[in-house]
Each structure stands twice: as structure tokens, then as C-alpha cells.
């Protein structure tokens, strides 16, 4: 593996995470609890598609085999997808959606903030754009966590359940491997382990305002999304997302 290969993999991982979460936001479109939230979730979905396109396009350029962003997004199977498992978890309800958005969003916010200092100009440029977007995604989801945690008895139970169920995907948000290590050495990527403490502070602050109890350490933690190890949900999401490209492989859209 050379730096170019590592950077390709790194960009595809970021893009995969963005596109899968975007797909989950798309599922809400037309079904939101109020019209304003429908618009907000579409907005976040759009931001994430934009992020995915930027990183896929850069990956395709690095690979230099004539593949497009769509070839990468629509022509890989679930074991080849490298997104964080958090983002493929189903919407279930608005509380799950907001908790997922917050837990992932806070980590993505910190990662993009560090990547704005990347020695790779394309990565730092894409990170700067993504950072602005993740800043308000985190603001939006954290406000909802507080509102739901401090709302009614029902909303409090729902938001706590979502936190309890999604907590098993939090360690993975900071998982790294030899790809990260190589790019850290080359000044392109950032060390996620160093962001964990700050993420914990962000989470603690919001949970405290919301009256949400942070799950005790020691429970099961999922691993390996970046290596293609996923939950059962991803295959279904991809079979829907990739349907037309797979059914008509010779077509241009």
C-alpha cells in the first residue's frame, strides 16, 4: 500500500459514511413530524450527498482507472462498503434519527476540523466545506436531544432508548487502522484517538442538559465497518440505493 492507495481508501470511507447517512435522511422526506423538520432533514441529506460526491470524485481521480463517483457508490457490495456502522442503523423514529445524527455528527465535526489542517489540499478543502455543514448538523441534533430529553415522559423514554441502542456504535467512530496510520505519518489524516476526549465532553454536555444517562462502559461495541463488517441493515439499504444502476448496467442517467 502506498500513500495514494491509502488516501483512496480514506476518501472512500468518508464518502461511504456520508452517502449512507444521506440515504437514511432521504427516507424521511415527506414523512417528517413537522414540515420544518422535513426541510431540515432534506437539507442535511443534501449536505451529505455533497460531501460524498466530493470525496468519491477525489478517490476516483486518485485511483485513475476511469471510474466515476457513481461507479464507486453504486457498484460495490455490502462487504466492500466501508462506512461507520452507526450511520446505516435504521431511522426507527425521530429520536433515533436525531441521536444518530448527533453521535456521528459530533465525531465527524471534530474529524473535519482536524482535516482542515491536512497537508493534502483537496482533503483540507473538502473538510472546510464539510466542517461548516457538520457544525449546524450538530447544533440541530443537539437542540433536539435537549428538547426531547426535557420534553414529555414519552420523548424522554424514546431519546434514552435511542442512546442506549446506538451506544454500541460509538467506539467505532474512532476506530483506525494502517490506512490512518500511514496518512497520519504523511500529515494528511488526523489521529482520531486524540479526539475522543473532546467528543466525550460534547456528549456529556448535551446529555446533561437533556437529562440523558450515558450508558456505562463495558457493553458490546461494534467494530470493523471500515473493513466491510456491517450490521444486517446495510445490505437492504444498498439493494434499494443501487437498484437502477445494477438493473441497467449499460445505461447512463
Amino acid at each position, binding site marked *: 500500500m502506498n500513500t495514494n492507495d491509502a488516501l483512496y481508501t480514506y476518501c472512500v470511507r468518508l464518502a461511504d459514511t456520508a*452517502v449512507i447517512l*444521506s*440515504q437514511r435522511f*432521504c*427516507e424521511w*422526506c*415527506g*414523512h*417528517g*413530524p*413537522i*414540515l*420544518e*423538520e*422535513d*426541510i431540515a432533514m*432534506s*437539507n442535511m*441529506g*443534501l449536505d451529505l*450527498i*455533497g460531501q*460524498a*460526491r466530493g470525496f*468519491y470524485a477525489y478517490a476516483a481521480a486518485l485511483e485513475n482507472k476511469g471510474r466515476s*463517483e*457513481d461507479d464507486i*457508490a*453504486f457498484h460495490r457490495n455490502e462487504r466492500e462498503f466501508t462506512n461507520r456502522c452507526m450511520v446505516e442503523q435504521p431511522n426507527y*423514529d*425521530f429520536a433515533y434519527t436525531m441521536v444518530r445524527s448527533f453521535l456521528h455528527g459530533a465525531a465527524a465535526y471534530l474529524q473535519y476540523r482536524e482535516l482542515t489542517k491536512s497537508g493534502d489540499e483537496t482533503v483540507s478543502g473538502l473538510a472546510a466545506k464539510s466542517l461548516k455543514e457538520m457544525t449546524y448538523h450538530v447544533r440541530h441534533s443537539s437542540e433536539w436531544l*435537549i*428538547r*426531547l430529553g*426535557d*420534553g*414529555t415522559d*414519552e*420523548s424522554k423514554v*424514546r431519546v434514552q432508548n435511542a442512546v442506549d441502542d446506538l451506544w454500541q456504535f460509538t467506539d467505532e467512530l474512532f476506530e483506525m487502522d494502517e490506512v490512518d496510520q500511514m496518512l497520519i505519518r504523511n500529515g494528511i489524516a488526523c489521529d482520531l484517538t486524540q479526539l475522543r476526549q473532546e467528543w466525550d465532553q460534547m456528549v456529556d454536555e448535551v446529555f446533561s442538559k437533556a437529562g440523558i444517562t450515558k450508558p456505562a462502559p463495558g457493553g458490546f461495541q461494534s467494530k470493523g465497518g471500515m473493513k466491510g463488517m456491517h450490521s444486517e441493515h446495510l445490505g437492504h439499504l444498498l439493494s*434499494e*440505493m443501487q*437498484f*437502477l*444502476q445494477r438493473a*441497467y448496467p*449499460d*445505461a*447512463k*442517467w
Partner: protein
Amino acid sequence: MNQQIIQEDDIRREEEFNARIAAGKTIEPKDWMPERYRRQLLRMMSQHAHSEVVGMLPEGNWLTRAPSLMRKAVLLAKIQDEAGHGLYIYSGAETLGTDRSEMIDQLLSGKAKYSSIFNYPTLNWADMGAIGWLVDGAAIVNQTVLAKCSYGPYARAMVRICKEENFHNKQGYQIMAVLMRGTKAQQEMAQDAMNRWWWPSLMMFGPPDKDSPNSGDLMRWKVKLQSNDDLRQRFIDRTVPQAEAIGLRIPDDKLKWNPQTRHYEFGEINWEEFNNVIRGNGPCNKLRLKQRRDAHAEGNWVREAAAAYAAKHARA
């Protein structure tokens, strides 16, 4: 005696109102208006807002299956625009004295109507093209005229909305053009969508003038500025050459250009189908209402939580 004064006062105010409209001025929310005018505007605007919101559903049906990231982004942006239009028109309608929540209750109870076009299913990807090109194209023809209507908030909303609708129209046509340049399967997809959406799009302009109730008042009040048949003709005249340019066949054997009138002649619209769909007997009437009701019911606890939180912190 008092009764007589009130009546005379109303007559005078209605004369002033009519004079204002005749002079081409707009009516604003705080201006006096006849009750029938207010009710009519409220009915039109709330139906329009409901149509934007229900209209998100048939396109949302293909959002998660959009065939490329670019198409997904464009479609999502377009549907988001529609949600925005809904919000904008609901706000405009609220200036007439009815809350959004009350209008939504009327939609969910089945009392209020929305555009019947959304009671047809989206069955292949080309339907996204047909909706943007034909349905939004028909909406533009209607709304460009509404942008000159006498009620200020509605007219101004239409100016802004038409700008976005033009983008929707173009992206729809572009989807169709790309499909028609594509594989045989894609061309068949496009023609299939054309066949299913053409006639319902023509019905969007409403019943023929001879059967259109209360057009008289609406025309005089400049709520309606052109007749259903005139607008329908304008839509056909501008759309047929666009179809021909990309090789799509219009599913109407009687369609032909009349060089004398400089308009297309076209076949008989199936008004029985139109009336059936309006009465609730279309392919997706039940589904669309169920989708809206489910979203509303499932969102209930979220709205309650937000209200409870707001109330707690307003007191604090």
C-alpha cells in the same frame, strides 16, 4: 335601522374593493374584503399548500432509488423546494385568519382537497422526469398567471415559487432527454411515463370552461385571470414541440397542429376519470392520505415534546 347602516356600509366597502381590483391594485391582509373573497382565497391557497406537501410523496418514492448521486441531489433539492413552497403558502394563507394546524386537520380529515395529479403512482424512474416536465410545467402555466392575482401575499409567493418551478421543469425535461438518448429500455421507460402522465397533466387545469363553476366571480375579482381551457391550450402548445424534440410520442391520436388557429387540436379528455379521482376514487387517493396521516400521527409525540419543552422554558 342599525342593520340598514351596516348593509349600506358593506355595499360601499365592496364598491371600494371592486374599484381597487379594477385599478390593478393588490388586496393586502389588513384590507377589508368580502367574506366570499376571503373564503375563496383561503380555499385556493390551502389546497395549493396541501398539493405541495402531498406532492412530495410520489417523488419521494424514487428518492432512495435515484440512479446517480447527482440525480439524487437534484431530486432531494426539488422535493425540499416543494416542502418550502408548502410552508410559504401556508403562511400566506394564515394571513386570511386560519392556522396552519387547522388547515392540516382539514387535509387529514379528507375535507380539504389537493391536486388530483398526486393520486397517480410513480412506477419507474422516468416518472421523475414526467412529473418535473409535465406536472411542474402545467403548474408553471397556472402559477405564472396567479402571480398577477389580486391577493398580494399569494401573488408574491407565486413570483418566488415560479422561479423554483422553472428549475424543476428543466430538470424533469433533462431526465427525459437523457433517457431518450439512452438504451432501448430507457426509451421505453420514458414513453411509458409519458403515456401515463400526459392526460392527468391536462386535467390539472380543471374542468372545461362550460362546466367550471364560479368562474364569473373569480375572474371579476382577479383571483382567476384566464380560463381553464385557455391555460390548458397554452400548456399543450408549448409542450408538444418539446416532446417532439426528444422523440417522445404524445399519446393522443387526434393531436394535430392547426395552422389557421396556430394551436394544437387535441382529443377528448376523460372527464369521468377526472371526476372519479377528485371524488376520492383514484389509484392513490387512499395511499396518499394514509401516508400523510401516518406521518402526522407518528410525529405527534415529537410536536408534543417540543411544545412541552417550549412551555417549560417560557416560564423559566
